């Protein structure tokens, strides 16, 4: 199994499971245009490596390690798209396939530099999807530059489990790393006590893309899903199933 193909699988599973559901084998085989039998084969291998959990009946979900790799590759992909589109002025239609080729060979160091260079890219050009946060504990790439100057990169490196509140499960806890969004909304969330470093726990998640309920500072807050997807936390412990 090459690194490229396993990354492609993880990325595909990541993108298909955006709403947290398990992904079926058929879906993967259709997306990658690979025969179902080969897909099953590959999924078993990935499961052995601890990147995914796989069951023929319930489908596939990413483990936290798998998710980390997938997010990294998706991030590289989207950064590359921005670079190809914004800087090199390559056609929107062509950037995707180009980025697919390049993402696997882009080193982490190059990724950080690209992020700095592009200054706070929030979304990729073709479908406006958010670029997952870089694993430095920073709000935007403009901050990367400042941190870089002060040589603070190392400090952030171990914070590798940054994840939006909206993708946490009930019962999971974490510490707030940063909030994306307009000034007004960020101020409101700060005023309600969601300041960086504050510990929060997920109490309830309303079904069908509804709000999440958080326990924070000895009280409870309901936060709409859209806002929740902009609050990033450092997860404390993976949920015990």
């Amino acid at each position: 199994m090459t690194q490229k193909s396993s990354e492609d699988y993880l990325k595909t599973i990541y993108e298909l499971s955006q709403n947290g559901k398990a992904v079926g084998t058929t879906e993967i085989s259709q997306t990658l245009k690979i025969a179902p039998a080969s897909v099953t084969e590959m999924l078993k291998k990935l499961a052995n490596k601890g990147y995914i959990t796989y069951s023929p009946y319930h489908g596939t979900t990413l483990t936290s390690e798998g998710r980390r790799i997938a997010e990294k590759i998706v991030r590289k992909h989207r950064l590359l798209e921005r670079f190809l589109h914004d800087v090199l002025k390559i056609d929107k239609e062509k950037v995707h396939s180009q980025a697919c080729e390049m993402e696997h060979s882009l080193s982490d160091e190059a990724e950080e530099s690209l992020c700095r260079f592009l200054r706070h890219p929030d979304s990729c050009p073709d479908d406006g999807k958010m670029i997952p946060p870089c694993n430095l504990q920073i709000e935007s790439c403009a901050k990367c530059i400042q941190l870089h100057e002060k040589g603070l990169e190392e400090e952030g490196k171990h914070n590798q489990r940054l994840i939006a509140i909206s993708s946490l499960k009930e019962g999971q806890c974490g510490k707030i790393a940063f909030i994306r969004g307009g000034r007004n909304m960020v101020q409101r969330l700060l005023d309600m006590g969601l300041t960086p470093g504050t510990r929060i726990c997920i109490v309830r998640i309303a079904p069908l893309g509804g709000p999440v309920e958080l326990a924070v500072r000895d009280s409870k807050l309901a936060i709409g899903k859209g806002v929740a997807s902009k609050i990033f936390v450092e997860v404390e412990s993976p949920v015990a199933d």
Partner: protein
Amino acid sequence: MSCHSCPLNKKSSSQKARHLKIALAGNANVGKSVIFNHLTGLHQHIGNWPGKTVEKAEGTLQFKGYTIDIVDLPGIYSLSTYSLEEIVSRKYIAVEQPDIVINVVDASVLERNLFFTLQLMELETPMIVALNQMDIAKSKGINVDIKKMEQILGVPVVPTIAVKGVGIDKLLEKAIEIIEKAPDKKPAEIRYGEEIEEKISLLIDAMKDAELIYPRRYTAIKLLEGDEDIEREINRVAPQVVATAKKLASEIEKLHGHGCSTVITSERYEAAGCIARAVQTMVPPIKPTIGERVHSFTTHKITGYLTMIFSLVLVFYGIFTFGDVTSSVLSDLLYGLEPLVRSAFGTGIIGALVWGGVMEGLIAGITIVLPYIIPFYLILYFLENSGYLSRIAFLMDNIMHKMGLHGKAFIPIMLGFGCNVPACLGCRIMETQRERLLAAFVTTLVPCAATTVIILGLVGNFLGIHWALALYLFNFLIIFLLGRLAFKVVPGEPTALIMEMHDYRWPHMKTILKQTWFRVAEFIKIAFPLIIAGSFALKLAEVAGLLEPIAAALSPITVAWIGLPAITGITLIFGILRKELALVMLATLLGTTNFAEALTPMQMVVFTLVAMFYIPCIATIAALVKEFGWKKALTITLFEIIFAILLGGIAFRILTLLL
């Protein structure tokens, strides 16, 4: 503030010495209104802040020879600029300078409440803390060291249990004592990190000579936080300071890697947390409380929705059944007065106008208010004060979101099914003016109880209940579509649901009764004059023989476009004034209650459709004017009339093809 040495000013203030102003401030749901009611009894009135749709409850009280005006400020979490309430409150405190601010604090959620307390302290207003809900804190195993808290905050702290009246007198005595003995005593100052303090001093220096509304230190802090409202103020008196503040703020940002307002807010919360930890000891109970269990049950993805549907059906069914019975008893009673009035005013034109115009209007008002509106508000406030409404908002957020609104908007919409007037007023729970307008617009499309009478009485009775249901579904569809459309058209940013979920608790009945009383009074003030005037105008038109000409004038629309009998034009006009009687009017005009004789099934459907959408009644228009001004109210009204007429015509043509 700067005039303390000015003799003229002193004199006028000593003249007013017997007159005091006290404001109640604090987070939402901490017990301000309970304390307010306790202090003022029925000597209060609810109005609006000038030019704003923010509620202002004021009351007066006599105490130790003083006449004290008390203002119940809206519940807020911060003094920034997120909502109208926040701006109004801080302006009030800074500009009107109440003699003392009573900061009501929920002892069971100390940290969050202290965050607000710290901001009040920064406003440098004389203040006193009412440490309320001590009973709940105790049941949560929280114990607060009052002495220590007073010491740290530099203001007196009085423990209270508002619902039982415990500590309220002491609170008032303490407040007066401060006003008498130490009116200029300022609360303790919160110190931020060195690098921030340095910038604050720089800014204070830069503003040395400027006339400011807010205290200097507060202004400096807010400028660093990038507070737009304050920036605007300062831009007028010292524009260069704003630029300096921006520069200093970006230095802090560089240093911390977070925005300056994030840094300052974090430090403030840190201070609040630190104080909370220093003054409280907590021994949490081991078992989850009943409230917590009810909470899990009522927010669960299955049981939560079931509970919600069940309770809403129960509430509406209960209100309508109760209302129906009481309403007919009442109207029988009141119509018993007819011979009396008739004999007093004669059977001529005057008698007809007095009875058919004024009295019948009054009766209509009474038979709505007592049987429907009162129970409605009682239940609403019960649900609100117990905490259930926020659970409903939580569960409905995703659906409301599809309309561009958030979960709280479901509450006025729900009210709309009873009556559009309280529903429009209820839109005040939304945070921004834009959100309020959108919610109010959607609300006026909701079929109220009177519309329901038409739907069920006409279509439901003569065409079958499935037709009535189909019309309801169609109504929801239109609400959804128009809601989305309005969301797209009205400029501005949508706000998302960010709401505190309070613990469940048993509501305080006296407060509920008072809140209901004031709401009903508000309703009567808005709706009664209009209902009576409308009734009178109609009778006048009838007596003057204008009905036929009006019907004829409307016939190009009613007959040619919508395909209804000409006489229905009058009913529709009548419906604006008194929607609940539109059906009775129709029966009178058609000369039969068996509508099937006079209207084809298609005409019934079209008539009902138009009646559903064409306008909220005149009282609703008045409520819209009150909340949003003439222009917006008229726009909504005109839009809905035109929309309903268009819809009626289209429905007529489509149904002709189908049926």
